[in-house]
């Protein structure tokens, strides 16, 4: 395998540009970020860098000593820069695959597949945005901050964590002009009962046009409830165990409530971003 960023060649292609590609990237750095998380920076070919915030890649994780991650692992895009040929992931070491990721060293080759899935939308009348997320979920929402700045929207990021110093990506949100509010478990400010008045006060003061969140079902229920009361739409990035990441295997389905029906959708294909109102 070459260690230079390249698209894995496919012998016969219909002249059409693929929507996503398997690409060999090169590790630029792979460093710890406050304790449990690591930031992986890759040199990546241009062809895979037409990304949308909220999309993800399927990573072919190297095997750590004595373990054998076989399937690719889905990881949201933390940062991407087409001009610079940069692609970034922020991950939490939880099992074999992410332990494998942690072994990557600068200069190593690394195979990724993407970009995959449907990213966040930011409708024209969504001017005042509020993002509420926790832990590694903040990584998934990070590229939203840049998108908001580019589109000239106002973004408030409520970053939840166990301890104030563990709140992820605060600097990054601030660097894109977001207002950051840190809530945490130690003073109880991250509990739904504490968050609700915080958010409702915001709605009353400045108005909120849309919510963005990710993962936690406690946050989802809170935002569904507040959203329903105030008629505020929103989007959530969801997770599910995956195999193909492309929509073929139906491993990654979740249930959604659409009107009074429960339907299944594939997180990798119809998602990972879904309307908050339909998520379960």
């Amino acid at each position, binding site marked *: 395998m070459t260690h230079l960023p390249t698209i894995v060649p496919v*012998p016969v292609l219909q002249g*059409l540009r*693929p929507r996503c*590609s*398997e690409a060999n990237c090169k590790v630029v750095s792979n460093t710890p970020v406050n304790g449990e998380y690591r930031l992986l920076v890759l040199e990546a070919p241009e062809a895979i860098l037409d990304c949308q915030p909220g999309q993800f890649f399927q990573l072919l994780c190297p095997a750590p000593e004595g373990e054998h991650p*076989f399937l690719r692992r889905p990881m949201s895009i933390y940062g991407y820069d087409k001009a610079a040929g940069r692609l970034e992931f922020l991950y939490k070491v939880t099992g074999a695959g992410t332990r494998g990721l942690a072994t990557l060293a600068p200069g190593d080759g690394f195979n990724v597949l993407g970009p995959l899935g449907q990213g966040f939308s930011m409708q024209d009348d969504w001017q005042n945005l509020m993002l509420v997320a926790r832990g590694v979920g903040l990584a998934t929402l990070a590229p939203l901050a840049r998108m908001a700045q580019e589109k000239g929207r106002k973004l408030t990021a409520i970053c939840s964590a166990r301890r104030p110093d563990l709140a992820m990506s605060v600097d990054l949100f601030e660097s894109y002009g977001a207002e950051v509010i840190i809530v945490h478990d130690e003073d109880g400010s991250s509990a739904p009962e504490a968050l609700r008045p915080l958010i409702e006060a915001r709605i009353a003061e400045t108005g909120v046009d849309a919510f963005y969140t990710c993962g936690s079902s406690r946050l989802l229920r809170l935002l569904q409830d507040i959203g329903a009361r105030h008629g505020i739409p929103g989007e959530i990035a969801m997770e*599910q165990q995956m195999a193909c990441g492309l*929509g073929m*295997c139906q491993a990654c389905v979740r249930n959604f409530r659409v009107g009074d029906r429960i339907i299944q959708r594939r997180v990798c294909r119809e998602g990972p971003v879904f309307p908050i109102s339909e998520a379960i």
Partner: protein
Amino acid sequence: MKDMHPVDLSARIGALTLKNPIMPASGTFSEDLADVFDLDVLGAHVLKTIMHGTRSGNPTPRVCDMQAGMMNAIGIPSKGIEYFRDQTLPYWADYRAPLVVSISAHSVDEFARLCGEVSLPGVTAIEANISCPNIEADGNAFAMRPDTTHEVVTRLRAETDLPLWAKLTPNTGEPVEVARAAEAAGADALIVANTLLGMSIDIATRRPRLGNVMGGMSGPAIKPIALRMTYQCARACDIPVIGCGGIATLDDVIEFLIAGASAVQVGTATFQSPTVMARLIAELADWMAAQGIGSLEEIIGTIEAPEAGTCI
């Protein structure tokens, strides 16, 4: 030389001729793969198994890892025959590669009915996934036994004039007898084979790692079993065998052809590398050219093996 005697990759599956022997395995392929490469390079398009009615499939998690492969318990979610006719079939009409439709059911009657109903213009062949449990036989899959295999394939045969492929299970203790029963009942080809039943437990929670408790193993770990059964079935039957199980590299493809497969299906490998089938087709052509091999006939079933001993 290569120009004068171009390599002929075409694969004959009974009356059908495929332009090459590489096709996807059911359940690991869909129109979504068109995002990655031109699907018309494939020898055939084999769709995910459908059932007659709508079904939601198994609880999640539906997949998990193992040392050299994966397990799945997707549970055959199905949008039913109408959706297939109105949505799926028209989509595939734009492609030139032959379309193989995989079907299954929990009873012989339902299976036969579905077989008749999917025998539509645009469908090139029908693949019967007889590895699904037969409610009338204590939930044992049809393909576990020669008698139930013979019964269901006979009924399917009566319902369609299309080529009928029977997909066997490696969980049976009688693969050769089952293969012969499918042939005797009129199958035009055999797919050898489906997934092996396995299980995995998360020791932290003491829960199965699959929502359905057990699941089907696929990928490199099962290759030696699929290869052994391909060899056994190809020797025992006159109809073509399509090898399936753990195929990921050019060497794997050649190994199955040498063992007697007329073509191969690639499943799990596509999850690791979505472009793998397109690469295998190109690599096979290059390898044949380099070896001076003009056609697949010079490879298929050319294994040099003594009789196997009884005791391992």
